[in-house]
């Protein structure tokens, strides 16, 4: 089980900020593939990976990163702070 978090328009498209996901995905990309297969709203939110960023256990990383023992994976658009 891993906590999956969504922020900004990713949160809005998927329709929730956080969920627990049962997964055996080895990488973030595999998790994305599992989520896209679930429902249309996930497929839409993850349709263009290049428009997204991912953090594993609160550290920015790449989509080919391993999930390992991670407890929290977050998806969001590029940051626009400052």
């Amino acid at each position, binding site marked *: 089980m891993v906590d999956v*978090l969504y*922020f*900004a*328009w990713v*949160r809005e498209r998927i329709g929730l900020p956080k969920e627990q996901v049962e997964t055996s995905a080895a990488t973030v990309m595999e998790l994305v593939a599992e989520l896209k297969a679930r429902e249309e709203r996930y497929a839409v939110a993850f349709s263009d990976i290049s428009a997204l960023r991912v*953090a594993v256990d*609160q*550290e*920015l990383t790449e989509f080919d990163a391993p999930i390992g023992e991670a407890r*929290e994976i*977050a998806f*969001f*658009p*590029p*940051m*626009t*702070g*400052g």
Partner: protein
Amino acid sequence: MKVQSAPFDPGAELNAFSSSGQNVGAVVSFTGLVRDVDDSLKEMIIEHYPAMTERAIAAIVEEAWERWSLSDALVIHRHGVLRAGDTIMMVATSSKHRADAFAAADFLMDYLKSRAPFWKKEVTAKGEDWVESKTADEDALSRWDR
């Protein structure tokens, strides 16, 4: 470092920051304000990722400490609902010498903009829109490659 929804007073923060340092010769501050682009902004909503925000900012500040000779560094970033003219965030750096204070403040801004987990949404009469990141913001980071 402060991450908060409450407003803050940039002038008071600047004065407190300037007087706290030992042997400081130069203080640079940056304040980011909510712009009312088309005279129609109702509010700006800033979302963030609480569990990640402080550690992301801390890592950026740490990097600035390693690169320049600083006396002190300050980051304040608001989240929640803001209006045109409100102060979104503030960065301040102090050093013996002005070049270090300028470079570090500039660096902190570039990294906070693209690497700290904040997202801005603009609410206008026409509707709501998430602010899109700019290619220029991402490109700005390459200035600091070494």
